[in-house]
């Protein structure tokens, strides 16, 4: 008798690899891991967290090792690197070691709350999206801890970007997203920029390659510990990337 595989069994085999690139996050890492475990264990999805620490001098890796002992090496996977390399290469490094068929990318600084991950997964399953992006700019989303100037820059930059690039996603610089693994690999391969504008290019390339994008409103609580940065050099980087993508995609 031929075995028939039901839909529920197919989705049951889905696994989500959460990539957490860290650099000096010893205060935040235990809490983000605790929250991930809390919200994903209760949702019942199969997952692993891959911590990619870039040789943090504050001992983030020691904390990560302790967390691995507490939660088990099936759930917490450590893939450290010797020194600080780019974000893009951190993702490539993470994907190589990921055993899931979906990849979730988020910041470890507590600005991205793991409670949204089950929502990303549900939306992805409902529509079979290639990418699900968290958005601060849609109803239900938002940002805590930003002053008028920061909001103005953010909204202004977003307005110009939407007008020039029409990306089909409302939050381009956010980095809380879920990708199908092969899609993420292709997007990384096609991206040229580095630094935080890399996130913007990923979404633009996704549009260019005709991938489908879903969005989940997220609340973004700006760095509880440590300082958040937005200086002149970030703005120039952003403007350059915007013009580059405007002229080439």
């Amino acid at each position: 008798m031929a075995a028939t595989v039901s839909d529920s069994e197919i989705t049951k085999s889905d696994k989500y690899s959460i990539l957490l690139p860290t650099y000096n996050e010893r205060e935040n890492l235990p809490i983000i891991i605790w929250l991930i475990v809390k919200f994903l264990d209760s949702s019942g999805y199969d997952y692993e967290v891959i911590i990619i620490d870039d040789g943090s001098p504050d001992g983030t890796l020691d904390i990560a090792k302790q967390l691995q002992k507490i939660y088990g090496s099936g759930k917490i996977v450590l893939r450290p690197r010797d020194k600080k390399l780019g974000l893009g290469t951190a993702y490539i490094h993470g994907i190589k070691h990921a055993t899931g068929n979906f990849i979730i990318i988020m910041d470890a600084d507590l600005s991205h709350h793991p409670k949204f991950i089950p929502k990303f997964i549900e939306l992805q399953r409902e529509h079979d999206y290639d990418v699900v992006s968290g958005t601060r700019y849609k109803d239900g989303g938002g940002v805590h801890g930003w002053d008028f100037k920061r909001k103005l820059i953010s909204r202004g930059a977003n307005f110009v970007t939407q007008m020039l690039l029409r990306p089909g996603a409302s939050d381009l610089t956010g980095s809380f997203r879920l990708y199908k693994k092969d899609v993420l690999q292709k997007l990384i391969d096609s991206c040229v920029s580095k630094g935080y504008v890399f996130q913007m290019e990923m979404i633009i390339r996704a549009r260019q390659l005709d991938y489908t994008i879903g969005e989940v409103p997220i609340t973004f609580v700006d760095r509880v510990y440590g300082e958040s940065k937005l200086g002149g050099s970030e703005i120039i980087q952003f403007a350059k990337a915007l013009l580059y993508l405007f002229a080439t995609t």
Partner: protein
Amino acid sequence: MTKLLEWISVLSAFFAVWYSLVGGYVKHPMIEKNMMLILVSPIIFVILFGLYAVTVILYRVFTFNNCEEAAKELQEEIKEARRDLLDKGLKW
């Protein structure tokens, strides 16, 4: 076609129409009567668009959700996580 080319083609189409009116290539009494308006119409358009952009951006800045609830909830969760992790033997 890149976004840049899309913009260039749309803008040149508008420019062609405007230039044919201003340069007198299309003749009609209505055009002559409103020549001044036609002449400055690109500037008017840019000003109106600027006003639209400023209004929309400011509206979005002032209605940007501050997520007070989410921030409070996170603070509570941080306390809970610290207690639980200390119980589990984490040396911070």
